[in-house]
């Protein structure tokens, strides 16, 4: 069953067509990779799904409902979380405050959860991410890689059904990359669906169940990672003819 369905999404910025009638589906429970050359529309797709940008045309369906054009806060409350290429955290809040901030998603425990149980959940998440010893430090003192982990943790606090990760491997050292990959697999096993934009193909191939390739604002190939990698259309999009 598909959890997220984008239908014929089109978005123009001035004369540039960022997305050109792009349709794709993410199935519940999968880790899907979204790759493509720079400017192929990956981040724009994220922005359309999460409500940062309104599409010129097309629909975004999530679970049972239509979420086209909803505000970002509402999209998160429906159960879609996202991270950014450059990790966006709240530097003047402490690490644990960063985690306590997000609203509960539709699947989450909602407002009935006591502040004590929220705090416990935040602390165990910090444990999982290896940030427990930093809990009461200002988040602005974390390293770049730690910020990536914290950002992921913050999103997970809302207990989203779907998480969109924008270049989780970007600028991260190999040891930390392994940790991030392992956490994604772990969270996926617990039931979270992932859609991952990534340039590090090794990371994508090792992690994703399925890969979609975007070029010039529309999908040109999709399938198993090993298939997509050898597809001549994909090679052409990346390397040129």
């Amino acid at each position, binding site marked *: 069953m598909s959890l997220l369905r984008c239908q014929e999404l089109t978005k123009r910025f001035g004369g540039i067509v960022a997305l050109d009638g792009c349709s794709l589906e993410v199935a519940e429970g999968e880790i899907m990779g979204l790759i493509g050359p720079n400017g192929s529309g990956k981040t724009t797709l994220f922005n359309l799904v*999460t409500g*940062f940008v309104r599409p010129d045309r097309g629909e975004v369906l999530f679970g049972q409902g239509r979420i086209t054009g909803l*505000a*970002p*806060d509402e*999209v*998160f*409350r429906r159960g879609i*979380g*996202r991270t*950014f290429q450059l990790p*966006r*955290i*709240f*530097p*003047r*809040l402490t690490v644990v*405050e960063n985690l*306590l*901030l*997000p*609203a*509960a*998603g539709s699947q989450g425990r909602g407002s009935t959860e006591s*502040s004590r149980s929220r705090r416990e959940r935040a602390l165990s998440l910090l444990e999982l991410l290896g940030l427990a010893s930093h809990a009461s430090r200002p988040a602005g003192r974390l390293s770049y890689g730690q910020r990536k982990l914290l950002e992921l943790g*913050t*999103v997970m606090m*809302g207990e989203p059904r779907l998480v969109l990760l924008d270049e989780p491997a970007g600028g991260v050292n190999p040891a930390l990359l392994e940790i991030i990959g392992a956490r994604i697999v772990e969270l996926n096993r617990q039931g979270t669906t992932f859609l991952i934009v990534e340039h590090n193909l090794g990371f994508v191939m090792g992690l994703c169940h399925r890969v979609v390739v975007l070029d010039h604002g529309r999908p040109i190939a999709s399938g198993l990672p090993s298939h997509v990698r050898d597809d001549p259309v994909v090679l052409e999009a990346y390397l040129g003819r």
Partner: protein
Amino acid sequence: MRLSGLALLLGVAVAFPIGLPGPATVNVGVFTLMYVGLATAWNIVGGYTGYISLGHAGFFGFGAYALGLIVTRAHVPAGVDVFLLVPLAGVATALFAIPVGWIALRTREATFVIVTIAVMFMLQILATNLRGLTGGSQGLAFPVPGWGAAFDVPFYYAMLALAATSLTVSWSIRRSRFGLGLLAIRDDEDRARSLGVRTEVSKLAAFVVSVALVGMIGGVYGYYVTYIYPQFVIDPLIGIAMVLMAFLGGMGTLAGPVVGALILEPAQLYFPYGLGQSRLYLVVYAAVFLIVILLLPRGVVPTLGDWLEQWRSHRLAEAQDRPRGDEAVVG
């Protein structure tokens, strides 16, 4: 320890007019507490969310006119009863602030600052020109209570109550999830929004609460000075002073605006005496502020907090160094 410190501070504040009686000293107390309340209330929107309003003086004046109109139209006699109507002035200010804030908070940063200044001057112009309502430039008179030599004392306690209210509100917001959302808006509003924080409602709520407190303080001020004129009650210098105090003490902290007001307001009252009738005192006032910005750019309270932390970790490091030295000898 914190609680006992707070109790001591409150005790000193309550005892002040008894220990140092006399209109001159109590008058200084009234204005100092007024600014403690104003800077604390301003900090709820300016410090927590980072939306710098330079137009709060407009709402200060709005509250003063609101109370003045209620009292004069309802023919409330002078006396302590007038203080009971102050919350009504707060409600009126809050109702007025909802549409204003809803529009103004669609802008950010410098644009927001300019919009708030514009709102203040619009209110000043309205107060000058709606003569039938406000008396225009002839002013609006409050009934004058016959409290004689002890005239200032009830006002002192009214201002103390409002300062305490502002602090309690600010403190409970700082501890709540709502307050956490406000601080997140200050750091990265769009990110907060993408984590489900209803940023528009939160900002507006903070703004309305902040100016409602400022409006109530304005009401008591109007009653205290007994006669209000548009250019003196909607005075840009009042709006700037509360911002400077919050900056000086430390924006976004609970104690910062209090510390800032306790330093700057007595200085602001003293300089005109000490430096005569010329406006030279404004230069001194600005110089003090510049020096602080250069030496303590984040404000007194956060900087002192950092020093304390550095000093503590330094001592901790020294304490840890010593046994290591012993081991070396033994080894």
